[in-house]
């Protein structure tokens, strides 16, 4: 379980590189199956206007706790070996990474399905709120984009 909220821009592939290295410290073979998801800021707001920035608010303490609880529960359910979550907070520009989720397991089914469900549960159960900034005005996003 490797969960962190980040206040500054990050490179998901560097997070994955560091995570893989940390897994190799514990055992020579990391899982035979590894699934990742990277989410980035869309260049347009919900109404189609060009987006200036996306602001992400969270509930310090609860957000980290919820992500850790969800990750732990799913890792157990799916029998996966390791889980990584990095999630941005603060003000992001279009195309900046928001989230990376990664799961390593012995088989592709658990890796892929756990990664997908973890992402979905983060979106609905981890306290984050997005505000889209367009022409200097901020609008809170109501809920999530469809799958």
């Amino acid at each position, binding site marked *: 379980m490797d969960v962190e909220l980040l206040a500054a821009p990050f490179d998901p592939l560097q997070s994955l590189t560091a995570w893989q290295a940390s897994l190799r410290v514990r055992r020579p073979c990391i899982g035979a199956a590894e699934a990742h998801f990277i989410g980035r800021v869309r260049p347009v707001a919900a109404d189609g206007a060009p987006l200036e920035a996306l602001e992400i608010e969270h509930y310090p303490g609860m957000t980290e706790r919820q992500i850790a609880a969800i990750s732990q529960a799913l890792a157990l359910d799916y029998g996966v070996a390791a889980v990584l979550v990095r999630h941005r907070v603060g003000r992001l520009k279009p195309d900046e990474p928001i989230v990376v989720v990664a799961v390593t397991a012995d088989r592709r089914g658990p890796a892929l399905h756990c990664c997908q469900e973890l992402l979905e549960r*983060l979106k609905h159960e981890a306290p984050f*709120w997005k505000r889209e900034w367009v022409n200097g005005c901020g609008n809170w996003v109501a809920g999530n984009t469809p799958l």
Partner: protein
Amino acid sequence: MKSGELRVRLFAGLREEAGWQERSLAHQSGITPAAAWMLLNLGGTAPPATVRVAINHEFAALDTPLANGDEVAFLPPISGG
């Protein structure tokens, strides 16, 4: 926070509508998040159905009795990931 108090927190759109992010409230026996919402005049007789409640960083029901020193938060619809 003094003993005998509750802490109430608001986030995102709820915070902006209310104009504050954190208040304390006297603890009374049997007080619930629903009662705190009314006592703080947060709008109507109860939170909208889309608002979720957390007590001490865990999701909870609107009618959970609050203990002395609890932190209760009202959370507008989540949009993470």
